[in-house]
């Protein structure tokens, strides 16, 4: 008898604990933000975290009468750590949504968890096309590589350039840029030569010499952001800037965060991207000013805007669902459209991926600082890899 009583009491206690747990979770809406805050991708993490905190400072921390709590965790940019942290956040902290994801593998590793636990997952940085197809709970507010590289190929062809050499780092995003740019450029009557640079590559001189000898109209480059500056320096050192070869790329190489440290060698580089800190709109001016003020003068880059818009998507979604998560929240975020600091953007209701303007920009000096100045706009671009 006593044994049975004991079991009953135990069951009751567990039941109580569970209800207490849910009651606690009801108190606050928790959002788990998983970012690389240390390691080689620290810049990504810092920008996104700062932007997310700025958004909460501006828009308040109450939705539907409940407090919103942001839990920032560091995954150091390693996929298995991301996955483990995501699991902890979902199981222990009972977060309503997870967000962040600085790199493609980090997002891919976590996708199955989002599906199993029906937790909405907002991707604020990773940019490979397939990510949103890996879980019906993923919503993206950053960019999609083909979305930038494809239209850029068309634009470059329209400028009358006939021959382009692409130099990309030999890894996933590099292949994406190479493929989408080349395909679209060729379809528009251009010729492309593709070169790939090993990921651990100390010296670009042989590749640049090859480009110099083949004398194309333009050189398209995609390398990880830190290495980009080295690439541009060697481009100028080799005198390629004076040889009539235009240096073009996706906006990653003229990232706002490092543009000033690259220095004057970046002047005149033409890139395509979805965000520039110099974007001319009242929303962006307010955003840049507030961001700088809150972060010691740091300039927001495209990562920051991804984080800011990611929080916006979550906030608006949560308002619609009255604070509920799960499938309802994903449904609520689908089709959202708003004026972001980057310009008009929306979440595609079919693919949950981002639809946004792609801007063509040129690096120019404004005052003492370098900026990407936008001079052409390709409006409302959907990810072409999913628009079949």
């Amino acid at each position, binding site marked *: 008898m006593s044994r049975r009583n004991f079991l009953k009491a135990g069951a009751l206690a567990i039941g109580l604990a569970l209800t207490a747990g849910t009651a606690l979770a009801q108190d606050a809406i928790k959002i788990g933000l998983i970012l690389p805050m*240390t*390691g*080689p*991708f*620290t*810049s990504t993490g810092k920008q996104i975290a700062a932007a997310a905190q700025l958004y909460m400072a501006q828009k308040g921390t109450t939705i539907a009468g409940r407090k919103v709590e942001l839990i920032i965790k560091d995954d150091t940019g390693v996929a298995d750590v991301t996955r483990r942290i995501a699991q902890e956040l979902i199981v222990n902290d009972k977060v309503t949504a997870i967000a962040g994801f600085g790199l493609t593998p980090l997002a891919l590793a976590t996708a199955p968890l989002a599906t199993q636990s029906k937790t909405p997952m907002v991707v604020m940085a990773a940019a490979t096309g397939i990510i949103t197809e890996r879980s019906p709970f993923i919503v993206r507010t950053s960019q999609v590589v083909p979305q930038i590289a494809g239209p850029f190929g068309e634009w470059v062809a329209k400028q009358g350039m006939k021959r382009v050499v692409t130099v990309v780092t030999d890894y996933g995003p590099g292949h994406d840029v190479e493929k989408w740019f080349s395909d679209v450029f060729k379809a528009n009557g251009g010729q492309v030569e593709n*070169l*790939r640079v*090993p990921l*651990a*590559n*100390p*010296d670009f*001189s*042989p*590749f640049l*010499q*090859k480009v*110099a000898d083949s004398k194309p109209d333009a050189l398209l480059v995609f390398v990880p952001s*830190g*290495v980009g*500056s*080295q690439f541009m*320096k*060697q481009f*100028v*050192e*080799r*005198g390629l800037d004076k040889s009539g070869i235009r240096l073009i790329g996706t906006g990653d190489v003229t990232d706002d965060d*490092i543009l000033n*440290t*690259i*220095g004057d060698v970046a002047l005149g580089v033409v890139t395509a991207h979805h965000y520039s800190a110099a974007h001319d709109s009242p929303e962006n001016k307010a955003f840049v000013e507030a961001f700088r003020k809150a972060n010691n003068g740091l300039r927001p880059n495209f990562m920051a805007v991804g984080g800011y818009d990611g929080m916006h998507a979550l906030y608006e979604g949560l308002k619609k669902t009255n604070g509920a998560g799960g499938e309802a929240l994903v449904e609520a975020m689908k089709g959202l459209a708003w004026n972001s600091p980057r310009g008009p953007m929306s979440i595609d209701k079919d693919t949950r991926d981002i639809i946004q303007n792609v801007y063509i920009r040129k690096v120019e000096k404004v005052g003492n600082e370098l900026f990407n100045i936008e001079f052409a706009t390709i409006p409302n671009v959907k990810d072409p890899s999913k628009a079949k």
Partner: protein
Amino acid sequence: MLTILFDGIAYGMVLFVLACGLSITLGLMNFVNLAHGVFAMVGGYVTAILMNRLGVPFLLTLPFAFLVPALLGLVLERTLYQRLYTRNHLDQVLFTIGLVFMAIAAVDYVMGSQPQLIQLPTWLRGRVDVFGVQIGLYRSFIIAVCGVLVVALQLILTRTRFGSQLRAAVDDPRVARGLGINTALVFAVTFAFGSGLAGLGGALGAEILGLDPTFPLKFLIYFMIVVTVGGTSSLTGPFFASLLLGIADVAGKYYVPSLGAFVIYTVMIVVLVFRPQGLFVKAR
């Protein structure tokens, strides 16, 4: 074609200055120092900090890029390394690789993980046309500096009293001590000098190779290749090995870009198959 050769030589020269310190400690002192790249990184960071934070001109930073790592090398040698001279190689490897990880974490903590960029003075930027060959100014500067270093090192080692003391201390420390040579001092100075050279290499190479906290690990493999291909008994070995590898790497990436990354390893394997002792070593 000649431009490729030129770039390859410049690249090889940087590799040599970076690695020759290692060939001294490994070859002459018989000590496996995997933390060699740490000193190179320190040199690079000294230059970057002096230039970016204090506005010191590039050339003036180079002596510091030599002295600071040399001093650090001296301190570490006296306090830590000398205890390991008599230990077996496995202990040395474990100790120095641990040092590498500590250094990476420390630099990451203090300086942040972003790559450090330096702005070269204008007279070193750009390139000139010499008899139809395009020559980068900075790369010619590197070749000049390293060329002088090579000659000076070779002379010190073969023609000076210190050089002969060092060779004696390496060949037979006991007898050398018996003849009144202060071997501990000789080793300490040599170690410091090798570290300083690495620092100088790091500073010179920052523009070409890039500089971030993972530098010691990223380039460890290149140092090791230079030393194994060159052999460790002299300085001429690593010197020609550096040139060979530099040129092979650059030319390989130019002519067969799809295989470019592997050329340097292929060269290493081929050399070691035919000359397992290294290029310029008489078989024992």
